[in-house]
């Protein structure tokens, strides 16, 4: 398989921070992967995702998206990525339709295909009857589904999901996971997924990387990790590797 994302010896040190947030981390995500990025709070997941999205540069090392870097090909790299943040990054006073139309236009999409894409995605995720309702009137699960659609509108090669199912009911969670699987199998969309729901990650991801304290501690195919670590589940692997110590700073 060809590489979509390559992180090479990346170090990120914030000003005045006592230690590096990312410490000489290297990993690869192949096209078509559903890649789980797991780790305790403060492990460096959000910092890594922010650098993948081109929000800020690495202090050292390089990140390649399709062989290109943000330094030289920012727009191409960004166009290849869709982001679904952990927060509901939508305007509560606008309807779902208005939110998605605005965000789609910000991706530079043309109005007609954009409207088709919005209609299609809303219908798939069971929101067509709520299209013109303000986001502020939506339930948590409905908001999460619109949040997901907002990252998909431009049909990205890599979809980055930061805790996409946090705080939602079982039905919404299942709808989100089923749709993501469909996107992966039918469209070949690569997915980078972070979550603290380890059972969900085990079921959903074909490859997993665990990072702790800014370092990559293990990575591999999900099933191989369980076997190699003599465990019954990814949760067991995770606890064996990261331990039970709190990560309070």
């Amino acid at each position, binding site marked *: 398989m060809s590489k979509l994302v390559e992180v090479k010896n990346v170090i990120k040190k914030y000003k005045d921070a006592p230690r590096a947030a990312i410490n000489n981390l290297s990993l690869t995500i192949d096209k078509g992967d559903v890649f789980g990025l797991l780790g305790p709070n403060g492990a460096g997941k959000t910092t890594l995702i922010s650098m993948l999205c081109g*929000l800020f540069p690495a202090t050292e090392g390089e990140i390649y998206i399709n062989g290109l870097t943000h330094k030289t090909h920012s727009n191409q790299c960004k166009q290849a990525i869709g982001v679904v943040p952990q927060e*509901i990054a939508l*305007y509560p006073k606008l309807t779902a339709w*208005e939110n998605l139309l605005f965000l789609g236009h910000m991706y530079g999409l043309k109005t007609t295909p954009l409207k088709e894409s919005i209609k299609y995605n809303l219908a798939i995720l069971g929101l067509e009857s709520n299209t013109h309702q303000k986001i502020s009137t939506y339930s948590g699960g409905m908001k999460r589904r619109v949040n997901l659609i907002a990252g998909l509108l431009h049909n990205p090669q890599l979809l980055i999901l930061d805790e996409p199912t946090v705080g939602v009911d079982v039905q919404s969670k299942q709808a989100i996971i089923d749709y993501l699987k469909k996107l992966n199998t039918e469209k070949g969309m690569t997915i980078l997924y972070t979550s603290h729901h380890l059972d969900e990650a085990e079921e959903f991801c074909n490859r997993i990387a665990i990072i702790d304290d800014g370092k990559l501690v293990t990575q591999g195919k999900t099933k191989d990790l369980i076997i190699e670590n003599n465990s019954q589940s990814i949760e067991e692997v995770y606890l064996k590797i990261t331990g039970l110590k709190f990560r309070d700073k």
Partner: protein
Amino acid sequence: MKLLYSLYKEFKVITRDKAGLAITFIMPTVLILIITLIQDTTFRSVNEASVPLLIVDNDHDSLSNVLEKSLINSKFFIITKKQLSVDEAKSEVAKGHYFIGIVIPEHTSDLLRQRSSDRVNKLMSSFSGDTLSSERLDTSTIRLKLFFDPITKKSFKTTISNSIERIISQIEMQSMVNSLNETMKESFPDAKPSKLETAPIVGLTEEYASYNNSTIIPNSVQHNVPAWTLFAMFFICIPLAGNIIKEREDGSAFRLLTMPGSYMIVILGKMLMYVFVSLIQFALMLSVGLFILPMMGLPQLNIGDNLPVLFLVAFSAGLAATGFGLLVGTIATSHDQASLFGAVFVIILAAIGGVWVPTFVMPEVMKQISVISPLNWGLEAFYGIFLRNFGFKEVFPEVAKLLTFFIVSLGGAYWYQKYRQLH
């Protein structure tokens, strides 16, 4: 295209925020109405007619009649005549019922005529070597009592005293001329002299040194409408900063920053929409000055003749206010911080800039400090257009300052945003 959609999004967000709209449009309207009404009397006392004046006339003769007529003709006073004692008159003024009280003692006119006649007779007898010329005259002054309200400013008090003294001098002069006339008649009984003209020979021509012969006098409306409009325009920094912080907190900014193209398009859309809102504020406040305030018995706002220059100043002020809002929104880490800092800073800038108390009544030190406030730059430009009929050339320095403030604020916001991303 992105810019248009960004503008459209901001328009929807702003128009659906009922509380924000109320603060943006209703607050300044109410402020203008209340403050203009409150300050109207103060401005009138500084500027023009309607100074309440009490006359206690114990003379009931020519002097008191001429004095009263002259005071009425000056159109400077609202005159009330009462029969009171000196102490009672003083008490009325002390209570604030009148700005000024004048007590004319009994027989003032008689004494004036008598002394005028004595002076003329003494003068005439000196020509004929009569013994009368060596007799001493009564040169004591007949004193009218003048009481002033203690809150009256010294300069205003001096102006009023001088006006009354001038009227009395004219009465004295007329009395002397009358006495001279009588004496001359006795000396030349067959003569038919013409009347001595007593109209002033040297006079003053007064005029405001304004452009294009504009003679608009600053009043509470001319001050308060532009002042509070600017205040409201700068107050827009709070909802704008809040909008930016909310986008940052809810992850929208993160999402927008991950999109291809510049995030500056989104910021530009935000900024232009808020400038547009500030221009609507401006138009609304001008309408209040033009149509609502006159209905409440206040003077109508005169906006001058130069509407394009007026728009330029309003646009520059809108840009300056929006730039400041962007800077606050970028630096502040929470909505509370932005609201508090934004509000306090705008209030201080307004106080320094002469929004609450006009700079022309400020002490010299404050006048010098006031020039650092962007609200003062805007206010001076509006004064220029409204009161002095200024054109582009005359308001250019103030417009340039407002635009520089905008550019510096925008540059500061951009630099801080980059700094935060890199660190």
